[in-house]
């Protein structure tokens, strides 16, 4: 029998005390990153770094909740301290259920293979320049791949880890099935769209795409269903300078042509009924210095959906739904303990008319990705949550192979809940096998030049537009 050394809130108190003293390194028992950087076996690092109360749900809840349990309204109070407030409300009042899974302790499963290698390879080589952009030390060039600050000391370092590489693949395209649920719990809108993203710089292959050092990424959101929206697309061309707004172009089927859009309209629903804004993407959808007043306001273990969120046995990998007035409002998800997350608050200082007053982003200390996200309106009232399961793409023995290491499962996202609690609208995103008008998600393509021309230029979105 393991003797509990700390109560469930001990590590949170300790971590905040350390933060107050300026010690931001991850870990309670030992610093996480130095172990990580040196370890040959990444399986047991988590156990060396955090106490069991941060890793085991059973230990954390004093046996009230165990792995394999389902958390619902009857027992959610036992994990309330591990959930963001919107998720708690969903479970306690709206009929949501989450399954508790085994924590992912093998850190390799928390990164794409190439991205982990780049993070380890390039550790310590990043610095902010005078314009507050990340540069490679010594060369002054753009960032060279992986997390620039694997053990962030500041909230800015934590945020830039997400901003410089959203999906952590040099090229990613995701076929996404969207269900937008109205306040009565009905599926009011069902869209299919493809999300393309390409890193121009900050790539794991040490390359700069076509030598364009002044760009960070290209990103297209292309709707393929239903007919009215077929061909609607938004192309964002990000400069490397995180103080500048991306150029934004859109193909509007009604106009039959590509239009330029102002880039500060990043807080608009892309299509009717959807609660996803460009600003929400990956928890850091805007250039990082268009936001400001970053601060860390909490540290500690949380629950988050990571592993076990691929439904490969279902037709087209569709995700079952439950809860809400019509049994449609939530997707079935598996959550697990994240031993340490930091909660970063930021304000949209570059968007004086933004409807968002601030946002809270929970960031997993093990890999630096977001594991919780809530925005507040200008009055300070909670507005939206953006929950995404980010983990290995595996389901039992089945897994989607990592393109750079086919023996290991790919790391990517599986599903999203974007809940507007003020309008009582929910958008569910499902990373399914195929959607209408797209042949399935792809990563790190051998012929990226061709794919760039095909999906990420103005000419491309004009061609992809509805005929």
């Amino acid at each position, binding site marked *: 029998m393991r003797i509990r050394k700390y109560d469930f809130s001990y590590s949170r108190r300790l971590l905040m005390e350390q933060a107050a003293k300026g010690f931001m390194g991850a870990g309670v028992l030992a610093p996480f990153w130095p172990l990580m950087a040196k370890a040959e076996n990444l399986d047991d690092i988590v156990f060396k770094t955090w106490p069991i109360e941060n890793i085991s749900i059973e230990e954390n809840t004093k046996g009230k909740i165990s792995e394999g349990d389902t958390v619902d309204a009857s027992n959610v109070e036992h994990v309330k301290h591990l959930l963001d407030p919107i998720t708690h409300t969903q479970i306690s009042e709206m009929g949501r259920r989450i399954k508790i899974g085994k924590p992912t302790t093998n850190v390799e499963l928390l990164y794409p293979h190439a991205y982990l290698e780049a993070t380890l390879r390039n550790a310590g080589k990043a610095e902010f320049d005078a314009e507050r952009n990340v540069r490679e030390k010594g060369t002054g060039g753009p960032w060279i791949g992986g997390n620039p600050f694997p053990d962030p000391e500041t909230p800015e370092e934590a945020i830039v880890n997400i901003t410089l590489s959203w999906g952590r693949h040099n090229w990613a395209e995701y076929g996404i099935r969207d269900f937008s649920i109205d306040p009565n719990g009905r599926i009011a809108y069902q869209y299919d769209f493809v999300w393309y993203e390409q890193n121009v710089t900050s790539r794991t292959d040490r390359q700069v795409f076509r030598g364009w050092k002044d760009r960070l990424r290209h990103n297209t959101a292309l709707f393929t269903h239903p007919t009215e929206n*077929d061909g609607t697309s938004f192309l964002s061309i990000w400069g490397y300078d995180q103080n500048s707004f991306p150029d934004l172009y859109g193909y509007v089927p009604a106009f039959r042509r590509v239009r330029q859009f102002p880039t500060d309209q990043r807080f608009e629903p892309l299509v009717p009924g959807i609660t996803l804004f460009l600003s929400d993407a990956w928890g850091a959808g805007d250039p990082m210095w268009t936001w400001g007043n970053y601060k860390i306001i909490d540290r500690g273990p949380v629950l988050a959906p990571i592993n076990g969120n691929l439904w490969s046995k279902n037709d087209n990998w569709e995700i079952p739904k439950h809860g809400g007035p019509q049994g449609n409002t939530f997707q079935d998800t598996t959550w697990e303990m994240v031993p340490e997350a930091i909660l970063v608050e930021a304000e949209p200082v570059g968007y004086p008319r933004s*409807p968002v007053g601030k946002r809270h982003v929970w960031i997993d200390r093990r890999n630096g990705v977001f594991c919780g996200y809530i925005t507040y309106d200008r009055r300070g009232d909670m507005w939206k949550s953006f929950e995404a399961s980010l983990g290995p793409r595996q389901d039992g023995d089945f897994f989607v192979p990592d393109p750079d290491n086919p023996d290991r499962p790919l790391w990517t996202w599986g599903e999203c809940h974007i809940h507007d609690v003020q309008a009582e609208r929910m958008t569910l995103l499902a990373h399914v096998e195929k959607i209408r008008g797209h042949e399935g998600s792809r990563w790190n393509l051998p012929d990226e030049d061709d794919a760039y021309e095909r999906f990420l230029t103005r000419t491309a979105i004009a061609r992809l537009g509805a005929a």
Partner: protein
Amino acid sequence: MSTGIGQIRSARHAARLFGSLFILTSLTTTAQAQAFWESWSWRTSGLLRTELAIKTNSTENRFNAFGNEFNRTPVTIRPGNPFTGFSDVASSDDIEQGFLDTADLPIDLSAIPVVDGTLPLEREALRSTPSPSSTFNYAITRLEPSLEVQFTRALRLRVRARLLYDFGSQLYENFDPRDFPEPLPGGADPQLSRSSPNYQSYRVEARSGRMEGGWRNNPFLFEWSGSDYFIDFPALFLEYNQGPFQIRAGNMQIAWGQALFFRTMDIANGLDTRRHLIIGRGLEEFADERVPAPAVRVGYQLSRVWEVDAFAQQFRPTIFPNPNTPFNLITHEFTVHDQYLRGGYDKKVNYGIRLQGQWGQWGVQFMAAHRHNPNGAFRWTASQVNRALPNSNVLGASFNQYCEAVLGSPVGEGCGPQLAQVPLDFGPLGSAMDAAGVQSAHQWFTGAQNARLGGIDALNVLIEEFPVAQDLFAQTVDNKEDAIRQIDAFAYAGESIRGHIDREYHSENIFGVGASYVLQLAPTNFFNQTIFNLEVSYAPDRVFTDTGLRQSFLTDDDWSISFVAENWHRFTPAFPGTYMVFQYKFRPTSDLFGRHLSGMGSEGSPAGGPTVVAPDDPGTGSGNAQYIVLAAEQPFPGRVWETAFAMLIDVRGGIFIQPGIRWNPGRNLQFDLFYNFLEGSAWGTRSENIISTFDFAEEAVIRATWQF
């Protein structure tokens, strides 16, 4: 008959093509080919939409028989004396004496009934056609299925069909010439003039000629239409894409330029106005109107800044609504001889190239194109209708006898052989011509004003360029009074007059340049992120319709300059940003419809009613055309509801306002409600602005769409 054969031929071509493909697929058995077939993927989608426009004003379409401003309004016609140059009003004695003096021809008028002791030579022209009040302007249901077949990553087929049924025959107030005891005599396309309105066909003169039976329906490949249905393929093309290169081949629409609605650089396609003219939902621009055509379009991204785009496409004209349909814009007293086929214009190819550059806040574009102007240009054309003047009146009987005795007409044909050589045909009252023709000079001048022509000018050109008219004592005039007396003389003699005009298409070059700039100011500034666009196009020696319908047309350089400012601004955190657009257009030569400005500015006609004073000719026309568009769209949170507002102001005195709301309730349904408010006489001279051309069409529009 030729129409049917043409359709069969088209179908055979298609069958051969698909048959060849089928055989090819059947015979291909290698593993590689099998993998190719298995790599195919396809998907379908579509929409079903019903659109209903409820008329809200009492003004009927003045270009139609039912809306003619002279319906049930008598106008006294007093024919001029042809033997005095129409300088005075004639009496029957003048006529008899005139023929005797000039041709030594005694006229026998014994068949003409004597009234009050004299042979009458004055009449009250009274169109007996009613002007019923229409309830609906537009009522259609359309199905638009789409198919996309991805053969390989580089090659795909895209198909979108448009199947439309027009409920006009059930819901509109339809003029039907068959309601008259006698049908309309020959000379016009029977499908457009001898039965109830034809809502959806595009009718042109056959290659072989124009006489009855010489008309052709559906001159376009991939279009099938009838009176109340319409089927076409706005998209039916193969697309190949490799790296920065892409090519499309097939039937397609092409939209260029950034300025919405103004079409400064949007020059590739004409507009099909059979479906709700151009007054559909404003923010959808011309997506439904651009006429698709077989084309090859090539695009190449030269660099991250520059891209080039070029096309070569079969020429297809703008299509106007047919006579007596709710949105008809060409007065029904004209028989239009569309020369698209007969003139061989269907074999013409438009082509153009555009270079676009975009870097940071700046964008530029350059364009050059060679095309046939899809608007076409109109001119008088001989009617080729050999029909004598009615013998039931003094002038008609006199001229018929003169033609037979002096001009060599066969006995019994009267002036038919001569009139066949002028661009007019005549028919007796009491027949459908009663409603289908011009019965007075006042109607002639009012029609000319509505059509932006000159009443005197058109008369003189007719006489000069069709000299047979001079054999009938017609002579050019230099004042309106003489013109009125002369036209009244012909109207009296012929009782009802129809005009014949050719529509021809002329090649032209167009050059364009555009620039855009995104304004970067402090984030709090209202104008921050405003997008400015300036587009200029220039068409040297563009051919226009002459105000007198001259054979030589009117040639002039045509400039078009558009300035656009667009902004999204969030006024309140509670609502998504408001889209606002301001547009200004300046055209020194022609109006937004492409009509030369020399036809504008005719004075003397009150709005929407018959005139007791025949309008003047336009004189020097209006100096320039200027338009302002103000539009905005305000989505509600979640974009479930969207309000929109669009206003087009013609600074010469016309206003078009379209407020609307869209509801996206989900479950693939969408509802639109908008209102078209039109005022063509807000200020200034009515005939100088474009809105007065279609301000009869005020309406509330409901659209319901289901997508699948």
